[in-house]
Protein backbone atom coordinates (compact mmCIF):
# COMPACT_ATOMS: atom_id res chain seq x y z
CA UNK A 1 0.00 0.00 0.00
CA UNK A 2 1.44 3.39 -0.97
CA UNK A 3 1.37 6.36 1.35
CA UNK A 4 -1.39 7.89 -0.77
CA UNK A 5 -3.54 4.80 -0.39
CA UNK A 6 -2.89 4.77 3.33
CA UNK A 7 -3.92 8.39 3.62
CA UNK A 8 -7.03 7.55 1.65
CA UNK A 9 -7.84 4.46 3.69
CA UNK A 10 -7.73 6.39 6.91
CA UNK A 11 -10.18 9.01 5.70
CA UNK A 12 -12.55 6.72 3.81
CA UNK A 13 -16.09 7.45 4.94
CA UNK A 14 -17.81 4.77 6.98
CA UNK A 15 -20.43 2.72 5.27
CA UNK A 16 -23.47 4.90 5.03
CA UNK A 17 -26.53 4.09 7.10
CA UNK A 18 -28.69 3.81 4.00
CA UNK A 19 -29.87 0.53 2.58
CA UNK A 20 -27.68 -0.44 -0.32
CA UNK A 21 -27.49 -2.25 -3.63
CA UNK A 22 -24.28 -4.06 -4.55
CA UNK A 23 -23.33 -4.02 -8.23
CA UNK A 24 -20.94 -6.83 -9.11
CA UNK A 25 -18.82 -5.72 -12.07
CA UNK A 26 -17.89 -8.31 -14.67
CA UNK A 27 -16.09 -5.73 -16.80
CA UNK A 28 -18.86 -4.22 -18.94
CA UNK A 29 -18.14 -0.84 -20.51
CA UNK A 30 -21.44 0.45 -19.14
CA UNK A 31 -21.42 -0.79 -15.52
CA UNK A 32 -21.28 2.79 -14.23
CA UNK A 33 -24.57 3.48 -15.97
CA UNK A 34 -26.24 0.81 -13.80
CA UNK A 35 -25.06 2.72 -10.75
CA UNK A 36 -26.36 5.97 -12.20
CA UNK A 37 -29.82 4.49 -12.79
CA UNK A 38 -29.92 3.10 -9.22
CA UNK A 39 -28.79 6.41 -7.69
CA UNK A 40 -31.36 8.30 -9.75
CA UNK A 41 -34.16 6.54 -7.89
CA UNK A 42 -32.69 7.55 -4.54
CA UNK A 43 -30.85 4.37 -3.64
CA UNK A 44 -27.20 4.15 -2.63
CA UNK A 45 -25.10 1.57 -4.46
CA UNK A 46 -21.48 0.64 -4.95
CA UNK A 47 -19.67 -1.03 -7.85
CA UNK A 48 -17.23 -3.78 -6.89
CA UNK A 49 -15.12 -5.97 -9.21
CA UNK A 50 -16.26 -9.60 -9.18
CA UNK A 51 -13.00 -10.69 -7.53
CA UNK A 52 -13.88 -8.66 -4.45
CA UNK A 53 -17.64 -9.16 -4.47
CA UNK A 54 -17.76 -11.69 -1.66
CA UNK A 55 -15.93 -9.45 0.81
CA UNK A 56 -18.00 -6.46 -0.28
CA UNK A 57 -21.24 -8.40 0.13
CA UNK A 58 -20.34 -9.34 3.71
CA UNK A 59 -19.28 -5.79 4.55
CA UNK A 60 -22.11 -3.89 2.84
CA UNK A 61 -24.99 -6.22 3.65
CA UNK A 62 -26.88 -5.07 0.53
CA UNK A 63 -30.64 -5.49 0.14
CA UNK A 64 -30.21 -6.47 -3.48
CA UNK A 65 -27.49 -7.41 -5.95
CA UNK A 66 -27.11 -6.52 -9.62
CA UNK A 67 -24.73 -8.61 -11.73
CA UNK A 68 -23.31 -6.53 -14.60
CA UNK A 69 -22.55 -7.47 -18.17
CA UNK A 70 -19.06 -8.38 -19.24
CA UNK A 71 -16.93 -9.35 -22.22
CA UNK A 72 -16.36 -13.00 -21.26
CA UNK A 73 -18.29 -16.13 -22.24
CA UNK A 74 -19.37 -18.44 -19.42
CA UNK A 75 -17.94 -21.21 -21.62
CA UNK A 76 -14.40 -19.99 -21.27
CA UNK A 77 -12.59 -21.89 -18.57
CA UNK A 78 -11.93 -19.71 -15.56
CA UNK A 79 -14.50 -17.10 -16.66
CA UNK A 80 -15.86 -15.13 -13.71
CA UNK A 81 -18.76 -16.23 -11.50
CA UNK A 82 -20.87 -14.50 -8.89
CA UNK A 83 -20.02 -15.49 -5.31
CA UNK A 84 -22.26 -18.41 -4.32
CA UNK A 85 -23.06 -16.79 -1.00
CA UNK A 86 -25.08 -14.15 -2.85
CA UNK A 87 -27.48 -16.87 -4.03
CA UNK A 88 -27.40 -18.55 -0.60
CA UNK A 89 -28.25 -15.31 1.22
CA UNK A 90 -31.78 -14.94 -0.16
CA UNK A 91 -31.40 -11.33 -1.39
CA UNK A 92 -33.00 -10.40 -4.73
CA UNK A 93 -30.64 -10.64 -7.71
CA UNK A 94 -30.85 -8.98 -11.13
CA UNK A 95 -28.51 -10.40 -13.75
CA UNK A 96 -27.81 -8.29 -16.83
CA UNK A 97 -26.33 -9.82 -19.99
CA UNK A 98 -23.25 -11.74 -18.77
CA UNK A 99 -24.75 -11.49 -15.28
CA UNK A 100 -27.84 -13.32 -16.53
CA UNK A 101 -25.67 -16.01 -18.16
CA UNK A 102 -23.59 -16.72 -15.09
CA UNK A 103 -26.68 -16.67 -12.87
CA UNK A 104 -28.40 -19.20 -15.14
CA UNK A 105 -25.29 -21.41 -15.29
CA UNK A 106 -24.71 -21.24 -11.54
CA UNK A 107 -28.31 -22.06 -10.65
CA UNK A 108 -28.53 -25.17 -12.83
CA UNK A 109 -29.52 -23.89 -16.27
CA UNK A 110 -27.68 -24.34 -19.56
CA UNK A 111 -25.97 -21.69 -21.67
CA UNK A 112 -24.55 -22.03 -25.17
CA UNK A 113 -21.83 -19.83 -26.55
CA UNK A 114 -21.17 -17.83 -29.60
CA UNK A 115 -23.62 -19.00 -32.27
CA UNK A 116 -26.34 -16.40 -32.26
CA UNK A 117 -24.71 -13.10 -31.64
CA UNK A 118 -27.05 -10.18 -31.29
CA UNK A 119 -25.81 -6.59 -31.20
CA UNK A 120 -27.61 -3.28 -31.15
CA UNK A 121 -31.33 -2.63 -31.25
CA UNK A 122 -33.72 -5.52 -30.83
CA UNK A 123 -37.35 -6.01 -29.87
CA UNK A 124 -38.48 -7.91 -26.82
CA UNK A 125 -41.93 -9.46 -26.78
CA UNK A 126 -43.41 -9.53 -23.28
CA UNK A 127 -44.64 -13.01 -22.39
CA UNK A 128 -45.67 -12.75 -18.74
CA UNK A 129 -46.39 -10.31 -15.95
CA UNK A 130 -43.37 -9.40 -13.88
CA UNK A 131 -42.72 -7.22 -10.87
CA UNK A 132 -39.90 -5.83 -13.02
CA UNK A 133 -42.40 -4.60 -15.64
CA UNK A 134 -44.88 -2.92 -13.25
CA UNK A 135 -46.21 0.31 -14.72
CA UNK A 136 -44.10 -0.15 -17.84
CA UNK A 137 -44.64 -3.33 -19.89
CA UNK A 138 -47.65 -5.65 -20.33
CA UNK A 139 -47.86 -9.15 -21.79
CA UNK A 140 -48.31 -9.13 -25.55
CA UNK A 141 -46.49 -5.81 -26.05
CA UNK A 142 -43.22 -5.37 -27.94
CA UNK A 143 -40.53 -3.03 -26.70
CA UNK A 144 -37.21 -1.78 -28.00
CA UNK A 145 -34.10 -2.85 -26.10
CA UNK A 146 -30.36 -2.78 -26.67
CA UNK A 147 -28.59 -6.12 -26.92
CA UNK A 148 -24.91 -6.94 -26.90
CA UNK A 149 -24.15 -10.57 -26.23
CA UNK A 150 -22.68 -13.75 -27.65
CA UNK A 151 -23.91 -16.41 -25.19
CA UNK A 152 -27.54 -17.39 -24.80
CA UNK A 153 -29.52 -19.54 -22.42
CA UNK A 154 -30.85 -22.83 -23.82
CA UNK A 155 -32.33 -24.27 -20.64
CA UNK A 156 -33.55 -22.28 -17.66
CA UNK A 157 -32.55 -23.14 -14.12
CA UNK A 158 -35.23 -24.86 -12.01
CA UNK A 159 -37.88 -22.44 -10.73
CA UNK A 160 -37.50 -19.92 -13.58
CA UNK A 161 -40.08 -18.92 -16.19
CA UNK A 162 -39.79 -16.88 -19.38
CA UNK A 163 -41.09 -13.30 -19.16
CA UNK A 164 -39.78 -12.01 -22.50
CA UNK A 165 -38.36 -13.26 -25.79
CA UNK A 166 -36.47 -11.73 -28.71
CA UNK A 167 -35.87 -12.97 -32.25
CA UNK A 168 -32.62 -14.66 -31.34
CA UNK A 169 -33.17 -15.24 -27.65
CA UNK A 170 -36.00 -17.44 -26.39
CA UNK A 171 -34.96 -16.47 -22.84
CA UNK A 172 -34.45 -12.71 -23.18
CA UNK A 173 -36.11 -12.14 -19.79
CA UNK A 174 -36.29 -14.92 -17.22
CA UNK A 175 -37.54 -14.76 -13.67
CA UNK A 176 -38.12 -16.71 -10.49
CA UNK A 177 -40.44 -14.35 -8.65
CA UNK A 178 -40.52 -16.59 -5.58
CA UNK A 179 -36.79 -16.21 -5.00
CA UNK A 180 -36.78 -12.71 -6.58
CA UNK A 181 -34.24 -13.62 -9.24
CA UNK A 182 -34.42 -11.82 -12.59
CA UNK A 183 -32.28 -12.13 -15.68
CA UNK A 184 -32.21 -9.72 -18.63
CA UNK A 185 -30.33 -10.51 -21.79
CA UNK A 186 -30.44 -6.87 -22.86
CA UNK A 187 -28.94 -3.80 -21.19
CA UNK A 188 -31.60 -1.82 -19.26
CA UNK A 189 -29.01 0.74 -18.11
CA UNK A 190 -28.41 2.36 -21.53
CA UNK A 191 -30.62 5.03 -23.09
CA UNK A 192 -31.14 2.82 -26.17
CA UNK A 193 -33.43 0.71 -23.96
CA UNK A 194 -36.03 3.47 -23.50
CA UNK A 195 -37.85 1.81 -20.57
CA UNK A 196 -34.71 0.36 -19.01
CA UNK A 197 -34.55 2.89 -16.18
CA UNK A 198 -38.10 1.92 -15.12
CA UNK A 199 -37.12 -1.75 -15.00
CA UNK A 200 -34.11 -0.97 -12.81
CA UNK A 201 -36.28 1.23 -10.63
CA UNK A 202 -38.76 -1.61 -10.20
CA UNK A 203 -36.01 -4.02 -9.20
CA UNK A 204 -34.53 -1.64 -6.66
CA UNK A 205 -37.66 -0.10 -5.18
CA UNK A 206 -40.35 -2.76 -5.64
CA UNK A 207 -38.53 -6.12 -5.75
CA UNK A 208 -35.77 -5.30 -3.27
CA UNK A 209 -38.04 -2.84 -1.45
CA UNK A 210 -35.53 -0.04 -0.84
CA UNK A 211 -36.94 3.25 0.38
CA UNK A 212 -35.30 5.73 -1.99
CA UNK A 213 -34.01 7.93 0.83
CA UNK A 214 -30.55 8.60 -0.67
CA UNK A 215 -30.88 12.30 -1.36
CA UNK A 216 -28.35 15.09 -1.42
CA UNK A 217 -30.17 16.64 1.53
CA UNK A 218 -29.55 13.53 3.61
CA UNK A 219 -25.99 13.27 2.29
CA UNK A 220 -25.30 16.86 3.29
CA UNK A 221 -26.25 16.18 6.90
CA UNK A 222 -24.29 12.93 7.10
CA UNK A 223 -21.22 14.36 5.40
CA UNK A 224 -21.24 17.30 7.78
CA UNK A 225 -21.25 14.93 10.75
CA UNK A 226 -18.39 12.87 9.30
CA UNK A 227 -16.28 15.95 8.54
CA UNK A 228 -16.93 17.26 12.02
CA UNK A 229 -15.47 14.07 13.46
CA UNK A 230 -12.50 14.17 11.07
CA UNK A 231 -11.78 17.83 11.91
Amino acid at each position, binding site marked *: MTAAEKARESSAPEASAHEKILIVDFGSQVTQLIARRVREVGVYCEIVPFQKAEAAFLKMRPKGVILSGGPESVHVEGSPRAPELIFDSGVPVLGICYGQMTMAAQLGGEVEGGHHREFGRADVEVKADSCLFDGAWKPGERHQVWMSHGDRITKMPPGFVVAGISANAPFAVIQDEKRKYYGLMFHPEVVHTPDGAKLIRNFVREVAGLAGDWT*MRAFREEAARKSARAG
Partner: protein
Amino acid sequence: MICGLSGGVDSAVAAVLIHEAIGEQLTCVFVDHGLLRLNEAETVVELFRHHYNIPLVHVDASRQFLAELSGVTDPEQKRKTIGRLFIDVFEAEAKKIGGAQLLAQGTLYPDVIESVSFTGGPSVTIKSHHNVGGLPERMNMKLVEPLRELFKDEVRALGRELGLPEIFVGRHPFPGPGLAIRCPGDITKEKLDILRKADAVYIDEIRKAGLYDQIWQAFAVLLPVKTVGVMGDGRTYDYVVGLRAVTSTDGMTADFYPFDMKFLGAAATRIINEVKGVNRVVYDVTSKPPGTIEWE
Protein backbone atom coordinates in the same frame (compact mmCIF):
# COMPACT_ATOMS: atom_id res chain seq x y z
CA MET B 1 -7.86 21.57 7.43
CA ILE B 2 -7.03 23.11 4.08
CA CYS B 3 -8.86 22.77 0.78
CA GLY B 4 -7.54 23.68 -2.62
CA LEU B 5 -10.01 25.46 -4.91
CA SER B 6 -9.67 25.14 -8.65
CA GLY B 7 -12.53 27.40 -9.64
CA GLY B 8 -14.55 24.31 -10.57
CA VAL B 9 -17.70 22.85 -9.06
CA ASP B 10 -16.20 19.82 -7.27
CA SER B 11 -13.70 21.60 -5.07
CA ALA B 12 -16.17 24.39 -4.31
CA VAL B 13 -18.87 21.95 -3.18
CA ALA B 14 -16.34 20.03 -1.07
CA ALA B 15 -15.20 23.26 0.59
CA VAL B 16 -18.70 24.54 1.37
CA LEU B 17 -19.74 21.15 2.73
CA ILE B 18 -16.73 20.94 5.02
CA HIS B 19 -17.08 24.53 6.13
CA GLU B 20 -20.63 23.76 7.17
CA ALA B 21 -19.25 21.10 9.51
CA ILE B 22 -16.07 22.59 10.94
CA GLY B 23 -16.42 26.31 10.26
CA GLU B 24 -13.34 28.41 10.86
CA GLN B 25 -11.03 25.41 11.06
CA LEU B 26 -11.12 25.31 7.27
CA THR B 27 -8.90 27.52 5.13
CA CYS B 28 -9.28 27.46 1.38
CA VAL B 29 -6.38 28.07 -0.97
CA PHE B 30 -7.16 29.29 -4.46
CA VAL B 31 -4.21 29.21 -6.83
CA ASP B 32 -4.94 31.51 -9.76
CA HIS B 33 -2.68 30.29 -12.57
CA GLY B 34 -3.74 33.05 -14.96
CA LEU B 35 -5.36 30.50 -17.26
CA LEU B 36 -8.92 30.96 -16.01
CA ARG B 37 -11.92 32.25 -17.89
CA LEU B 38 -13.07 35.88 -17.83
CA ASN B 39 -13.93 37.04 -14.27
CA GLU B 40 -13.56 33.49 -12.96
CA ALA B 41 -11.12 34.34 -10.17
CA GLU B 42 -13.28 37.28 -9.06
CA THR B 43 -16.35 35.04 -8.97
CA VAL B 44 -14.64 32.48 -6.74
CA VAL B 45 -13.26 35.11 -4.38
CA GLU B 46 -16.62 36.88 -4.15
CA LEU B 47 -18.48 33.61 -3.57
CA PHE B 48 -16.21 32.37 -0.80
CA ARG B 49 -15.19 35.56 0.99
CA HIS B 50 -18.46 37.43 0.83
CA HIS B 51 -21.29 35.01 0.16
CA TYR B 52 -20.09 32.14 2.39
CA ASN B 53 -17.62 34.01 4.57
CA ILE B 54 -15.08 31.18 4.27
CA PRO B 55 -11.42 32.08 4.94
CA LEU B 56 -9.74 32.15 1.54
CA VAL B 57 -6.12 32.60 0.52
CA HIS B 58 -6.13 33.91 -3.04
CA VAL B 59 -2.72 33.43 -4.63
CA ASP B 60 -2.19 35.29 -7.87
CA ALA B 61 0.54 33.18 -9.42
CA SER B 62 -0.29 34.07 -13.01
CA ARG B 63 3.07 35.77 -13.69
CA GLN B 64 5.00 32.78 -12.45
CA PHE B 65 2.91 30.37 -14.53
CA LEU B 66 3.12 32.46 -17.69
CA ALA B 67 6.87 32.93 -17.27
CA GLU B 68 7.45 29.17 -16.99
CA LEU B 69 5.07 28.44 -19.86
CA SER B 70 6.78 30.90 -22.17
CA GLY B 71 8.03 29.05 -25.26
CA VAL B 72 6.35 25.77 -24.27
CA THR B 73 4.31 24.53 -27.23
CA ASP B 74 4.00 20.78 -26.65
CA PRO B 75 0.60 19.98 -25.06
CA GLU B 76 1.97 17.31 -22.69
CA GLN B 77 4.76 19.63 -21.62
CA LYS B 78 2.21 22.36 -20.92
CA ARG B 79 0.19 20.03 -18.69
CA LYS B 80 3.27 18.84 -16.81
CA THR B 81 4.58 22.35 -16.26
CA ILE B 82 1.22 23.53 -14.93
CA GLY B 83 0.80 20.46 -12.69
CA ARG B 84 4.27 20.85 -11.18
CA LEU B 85 3.93 24.59 -10.58
CA PHE B 86 0.49 24.15 -9.07
CA ILE B 87 1.85 21.77 -6.46
CA ASP B 88 4.83 24.04 -5.72
CA VAL B 89 2.64 27.10 -5.20
CA PHE B 90 0.02 25.21 -3.21
CA GLU B 91 2.63 23.64 -0.97
CA ALA B 92 4.28 26.99 -0.25
CA GLU B 93 0.91 28.49 0.74
CA ALA B 94 -0.03 25.47 2.86
CA LYS B 95 3.26 25.86 4.74
CA LYS B 96 2.55 29.53 5.37
CA ILE B 97 -0.83 28.65 6.89
CA GLY B 98 0.95 26.05 9.01
CA GLY B 99 -0.33 23.31 11.25
CA ALA B 100 -2.84 21.81 8.83
CA GLN B 101 -3.15 18.06 9.29
CA LEU B 102 -5.95 17.43 6.84
CA LEU B 103 -6.18 18.14 3.14
CA ALA B 104 -9.62 18.17 1.52
CA GLN B 105 -10.09 17.22 -2.11
CA GLY B 106 -13.07 17.04 -4.42
CA THR B 107 -12.39 13.45 -5.55
CA LEU B 108 -15.49 11.87 -7.13
CA TYR B 109 -16.76 8.29 -7.23
CA PRO B 110 -15.72 7.59 -10.84
CA ASP B 111 -12.13 8.43 -9.77
CA VAL B 112 -12.07 5.70 -7.13
CA ILE B 113 -14.17 2.87 -8.61
CA GLU B 114 -11.93 -0.14 -8.98
CA SER B 115 -12.00 -1.49 -12.50
CA VAL B 116 -12.15 -5.14 -13.50
CA SER B 117 -8.94 -6.61 -14.86
CA PHE B 118 -9.01 -10.05 -16.49
CA THR B 119 -5.28 -10.33 -16.92
CA GLY B 120 -3.54 -9.45 -13.69
CA GLY B 121 -6.14 -10.22 -11.05
CA PRO B 122 -7.95 -7.41 -9.28
CA SER B 123 -6.73 -4.03 -10.41
CA VAL B 124 -6.54 -1.09 -8.08
CA THR B 125 -6.04 1.71 -10.50
CA ILE B 126 -7.02 4.84 -8.67
CA LYS B 127 -6.74 7.57 -11.24
CA SER B 128 -4.65 10.48 -10.14
CA HIS B 129 -5.91 13.65 -11.71
CA HIS B 130 -5.92 15.39 -8.36
CA ASN B 131 -4.89 18.97 -8.18
CA VAL B 132 -2.47 18.34 -5.38
CA GLY B 133 -1.07 14.90 -6.12
CA GLY B 134 1.82 13.83 -3.94
CA LEU B 135 1.31 16.63 -1.47
CA PRO B 136 -0.34 14.76 1.42
CA GLU B 137 2.59 12.35 1.70
CA ARG B 138 5.27 15.04 1.49
CA MET B 139 3.56 17.22 4.08
CA ASN B 140 2.37 14.33 6.21
CA MET B 141 -1.28 15.29 5.88
CA LYS B 142 -4.31 13.03 5.79
CA LEU B 143 -6.71 13.24 2.88
CA VAL B 144 -10.38 14.07 3.34
CA GLU B 145 -12.55 13.33 0.32
CA PRO B 146 -16.16 14.06 1.22
CA LEU B 147 -17.45 13.58 -2.35
CA ARG B 148 -15.82 10.25 -3.07
CA GLU B 149 -19.19 8.45 -3.00
CA LEU B 150 -20.80 10.78 -5.55
CA PHE B 151 -21.23 11.05 -9.30
CA LYS B 152 -20.89 14.43 -11.00
CA ASP B 153 -24.63 15.02 -11.29
CA GLU B 154 -25.01 14.25 -7.58
CA VAL B 155 -22.29 16.81 -6.79
CA ARG B 156 -24.26 19.37 -8.78
CA ALA B 157 -27.44 18.49 -6.84
CA LEU B 158 -25.50 18.78 -3.58
CA GLY B 159 -24.15 22.16 -4.69
CA ARG B 160 -27.71 23.39 -5.23
CA GLU B 161 -28.68 21.96 -1.85
CA LEU B 162 -25.83 23.97 -0.30
CA GLY B 163 -27.05 27.13 -1.98
CA LEU B 164 -24.35 27.54 -4.62
CA PRO B 165 -25.65 29.76 -7.43
CA GLU B 166 -27.10 27.88 -10.42
CA ILE B 167 -24.81 29.70 -12.84
CA PHE B 168 -21.85 28.23 -10.94
CA VAL B 169 -23.23 24.74 -10.29
CA GLY B 170 -24.45 24.15 -13.84
CA ARG B 171 -21.25 25.24 -15.55
CA HIS B 172 -19.68 23.16 -18.29
CA PRO B 173 -16.59 21.11 -17.37
CA PHE B 174 -13.34 23.08 -17.44
CA PRO B 175 -9.94 21.39 -17.60
CA GLY B 176 -7.31 21.83 -14.90
CA PRO B 177 -4.69 23.35 -17.25
CA GLY B 178 -7.39 25.83 -18.23
CA LEU B 179 -6.98 28.09 -21.24
CA ALA B 180 -3.41 26.82 -21.78
CA ILE B 181 -4.79 23.90 -23.75
CA ARG B 182 -7.24 26.09 -25.66
CA CYS B 183 -4.39 28.16 -26.99
CA PRO B 184 -2.39 25.79 -29.22
CA GLY B 185 1.25 26.74 -29.58
CA ASP B 186 3.04 29.37 -27.56
CA ILE B 187 1.08 31.03 -24.73
CA THR B 188 1.24 34.76 -24.08
CA LYS B 189 -0.82 37.07 -21.91
CA GLU B 190 -1.96 38.91 -25.05
CA LYS B 191 -3.30 35.70 -26.59
CA LEU B 192 -4.97 34.63 -23.34
CA ASP B 193 -6.72 37.99 -23.03
CA ILE B 194 -8.07 37.72 -26.58
CA LEU B 195 -9.23 34.15 -25.93
CA ARG B 196 -10.92 35.10 -22.65
CA LYS B 197 -12.95 37.83 -24.32
CA ALA B 198 -13.92 35.71 -27.33
CA ASP B 199 -14.95 32.82 -25.09
CA ALA B 200 -17.08 35.10 -22.90
CA VAL B 201 -18.93 36.50 -25.93
CA TYR B 202 -19.52 33.00 -27.33
CA ILE B 203 -20.86 31.64 -24.03
CA ASP B 204 -23.01 34.73 -23.59
CA GLU B 205 -24.59 34.14 -27.02
CA ILE B 206 -25.22 30.48 -26.13
CA ARG B 207 -26.88 31.45 -22.86
CA LYS B 208 -29.00 34.10 -24.55
CA ALA B 209 -30.17 31.55 -27.13
CA GLY B 210 -31.21 29.25 -24.27
CA LEU B 211 -28.87 26.49 -25.43
CA TYR B 212 -26.36 26.33 -22.58
CA ASP B 213 -27.94 23.43 -20.70
CA GLN B 214 -28.40 21.37 -23.86
CA ILE B 215 -24.66 21.48 -24.54
CA TRP B 216 -22.16 19.34 -22.61
CA GLN B 217 -19.27 21.69 -23.20
CA ALA B 218 -18.74 24.82 -25.28
CA PHE B 219 -15.67 27.01 -25.55
CA ALA B 220 -13.52 29.10 -27.85
CA VAL B 221 -10.01 28.20 -29.01
CA LEU B 222 -7.43 30.73 -30.19
CA LEU B 223 -5.56 29.37 -33.18
CA PRO B 224 -1.85 30.16 -33.58
CA VAL B 225 -2.57 31.52 -37.05
CA LYS B 226 -3.14 35.00 -38.38
CA THR B 227 -5.12 35.58 -41.53
CA VAL B 228 -5.97 38.58 -43.68
CA GLY B 229 -9.22 40.45 -43.31
CA VAL B 230 -10.80 43.74 -44.18
CA MET B 231 -12.50 45.87 -41.57
CA GLY B 232 -13.83 49.29 -42.36
CA ASP B 233 -11.47 50.69 -44.97
CA GLY B 234 -8.42 48.90 -43.66
CA ARG B 235 -6.72 45.61 -44.16
CA THR B 236 -6.27 43.52 -40.99
CA TYR B 237 -3.95 40.67 -40.13
CA ASP B 238 -5.35 39.03 -36.97
CA TYR B 239 -5.99 35.76 -35.17
CA VAL B 240 -8.54 33.05 -35.97
CA VAL B 241 -10.93 31.91 -33.22
CA GLY B 242 -12.28 28.36 -33.35
CA LEU B 243 -15.64 27.66 -31.70
CA ARG B 244 -16.41 24.25 -30.19
CA ALA B 245 -19.66 22.88 -28.77
CA VAL B 246 -20.45 19.22 -28.15
CA THR B 247 -23.25 17.11 -26.77
CA SER B 248 -22.43 14.06 -24.68
CA THR B 249 -23.88 12.07 -21.82
CA ASP B 250 -20.60 11.11 -20.18
CA GLY B 251 -17.72 12.84 -21.96
CA MET B 252 -16.50 9.52 -23.36
CA THR B 253 -18.07 10.04 -26.77
CA ALA B 254 -19.39 13.32 -28.14
CA ASP B 255 -21.09 14.85 -31.16
CA PHE B 256 -20.59 18.40 -32.36
CA TYR B 257 -23.63 20.56 -31.60
CA PRO B 258 -25.67 21.30 -34.75
CA PHE B 259 -26.07 25.06 -34.30
CA ASP B 260 -28.33 26.97 -36.60
CA MET B 261 -26.16 28.86 -39.14
CA LYS B 262 -27.84 32.11 -38.09
CA PHE B 263 -26.65 31.56 -34.53
CA LEU B 264 -23.08 30.90 -35.68
CA GLY B 265 -23.14 33.93 -37.96
CA ALA B 266 -24.35 36.19 -35.17
CA ALA B 267 -21.79 34.83 -32.69
CA ALA B 268 -18.96 35.31 -35.22
CA THR B 269 -20.01 38.88 -35.96
CA ARG B 270 -20.16 39.75 -32.27
CA ILE B 271 -16.75 38.21 -31.56
CA ILE B 272 -15.07 40.02 -34.44
CA ASN B 273 -16.74 43.33 -33.54
CA GLU B 274 -16.07 43.15 -29.83
CA VAL B 275 -12.72 41.39 -29.55
CA LYS B 276 -9.74 43.29 -30.88
CA GLY B 277 -7.19 40.99 -32.49
CA VAL B 278 -9.66 38.58 -34.11
CA ASN B 279 -10.84 38.86 -37.72
CA ARG B 280 -12.02 35.32 -38.51
CA VAL B 281 -14.17 32.70 -36.75
CA VAL B 282 -14.52 29.00 -37.63
CA TYR B 283 -16.70 26.22 -36.18
CA ASP B 284 -15.35 22.76 -35.30
CA VAL B 285 -17.57 19.98 -36.70
CA THR B 286 -15.53 17.02 -35.43
CA SER B 287 -17.09 14.33 -33.22
CA LYS B 288 -15.30 12.32 -30.54
CA PRO B 289 -13.98 9.89 -31.69
CA PRO B 290 -12.06 10.61 -33.89
CA GLY B 291 -11.45 14.04 -32.35
CA THR B 292 -11.26 14.91 -28.67
CA ILE B 293 -13.45 17.52 -27.00
CA GLU B 294 -10.51 19.77 -26.12
CA TRP B 295 -7.97 20.67 -28.80
CA GLU B 296 -4.86 19.73 -26.84
